[in-house]
């Protein structure tokens, strides 16, 4: 079913919307959550919570043209929360690794008083990513949005792990410079 029709069902408060969403995007959403939580049961809970969240937010939200991204953002958020609050040891280690990588992008120590709104920062990162080649952008997003392991990205892209790591390193350095130029005083 087309995204427009699924959103139409949400707007009409028709529960068929959830079923159609699950049919169309269920597998991909479950995959995102499984990659983050590394736990099938937790991932399934996150998937169900995603449908509930979508049901509660559409309307007033109307993600016409980006329904998958909208749902993916919700399940990513829920999956990260699940990792944090349910103390999944293994995944916590992975998250620590990820956040350590990302801290390289932050121009200033974390004791800065000023705190940016996530949304504003996210948009700035998006602008930076738009300047990259599609290949680099995909690698970056797969790593820090979908939280795919380096090994998985390398296999999916058909390139070596060292190349993925090098690409990520350069992107992080570039992002750090970009944020500084944009005047972010973090």
């Amino acid at each position, binding site marked *: 079913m087309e995204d427009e029709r699924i959103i139409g069902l949400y707007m009409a408060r028709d529960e068929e919307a959830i079923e159609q969403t699950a049919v169309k995007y269920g597998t*991909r959403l479950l995959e995102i959550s499984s990659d983050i939580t590394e736990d099938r049961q937790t991932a399934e809970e996150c998937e169900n919570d995603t449908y509930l969240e979508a049901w509660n937010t559409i309307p007033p939200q109307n*993600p016409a*043209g*980006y329904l*998958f*991204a*909208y749902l*993916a*953002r919700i399940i*990513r*958020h829920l999956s*990260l929360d699940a990792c944090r609050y349910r103390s999944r040891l293994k995944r916590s280690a992975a*998250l620590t690794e*990820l*956040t*350590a*990588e*990302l*801290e390289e*992008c*932050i121009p200033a120590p*974390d004791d*800065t008083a000023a*705190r*940016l709104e*996530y*949304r504003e*920062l*996210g*948009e700035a*990162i*998006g602008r930076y*990513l*738009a300047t990259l080649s*599609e290949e680099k*952008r*995909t690698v970056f*997003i*797969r790593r*820090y*949005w*979908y939280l795919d392991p380096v090994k998985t990205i390398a*296999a*999916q*892209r*058909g390139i070596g792990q060292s190349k993925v790591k090098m690409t990520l390193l350069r992107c992080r350095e570039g992002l750090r410079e970009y944020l500084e130029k944009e005047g972010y005083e*973090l």
Partner: protein
Amino acid sequence: MRGTELLEAMAYLPPEQIEAAERRNRKRAPFLRRISVAAAVLFCLTSTLFFSAWAFLPALNVENAERIVLCRVGDRLAEYAVTDVSRYQDWTMESRKGESLGANIWRIKDAEDLVRVIWDDGQHYPELLRFRSFRAFLDEDSPLFTEGILTEEDRTLLRFGESYPFGEVLETIYGVASWEDIRSVTWEKADFDRSAAGKRVKAETCVLRDEESLIRVYHILKDLVRSSGDAEGPRRVFADDPAYRNGELPLSIQTDRRVTVTLKSGETIRFQYAPGEGMLYENHTVLYDPLNADDNRWLIERIGIDLTWHDWGANASPTGETASVREP
């Protein structure tokens, strides 16, 4: 700010970037594996193609090429020629045998016509035969009689020495009982003249499918009568013919047509058409009496045959190869 917060901020990336990364997340196999897969696919395709051609394309039966088998169909002596068969047909020939039509001849199972039959004497491999014509003119001193191939009973049952209407062939052999059994009739440039001038000639292909035309053509075919034994085929005018060089007659390749009658059963019947003489004929051994003037005129107009003289290189000596006409 900590890395975790930056991770949170990533959630607000533009949706189109998220979607694009998802779409591009196609797993790409390593180069060697991709090459191996491509090679394997190519190998499979080539093998399939080769095997299909090997098994299903008719293979030339050199040993028995042009071998003629005579068999009785009703009170006629029919001439069948050994035809090429694919290996698949060869393997399944035994199971395709239907009703027996007499000594060593079998109808194809479930076939309603007699265009193809199976010959099997029990000592050699079965062969597929295709109908050529009724043997209308057989001398009494033919080896068929003198060597005892045809029995005395055959001699009394078979009709010889008389011409026959093609309508009999249409009905008995091809199972065509009315014009509705014909799908189409195609008139296209013949292929007997491969000289330089012949190649330059343009002749439009005409396909008749409409009811009125099919009815008319059906009756023309049905009324064809096989010519007597000493009849001659139509004259063929090539570029080196004085009649053409002097502008008296057009090239035969310009006026003549190859005719393909396609039946609804899938079978085809082939003729040559010479509008100058008003003759439809199968080859120079199977000729039919000229059409009546009305039918011939109708055909010329309907097919759009140009009978006027054109210079296709009249004064140039033919440089190409000219196909020889099969001798009776």
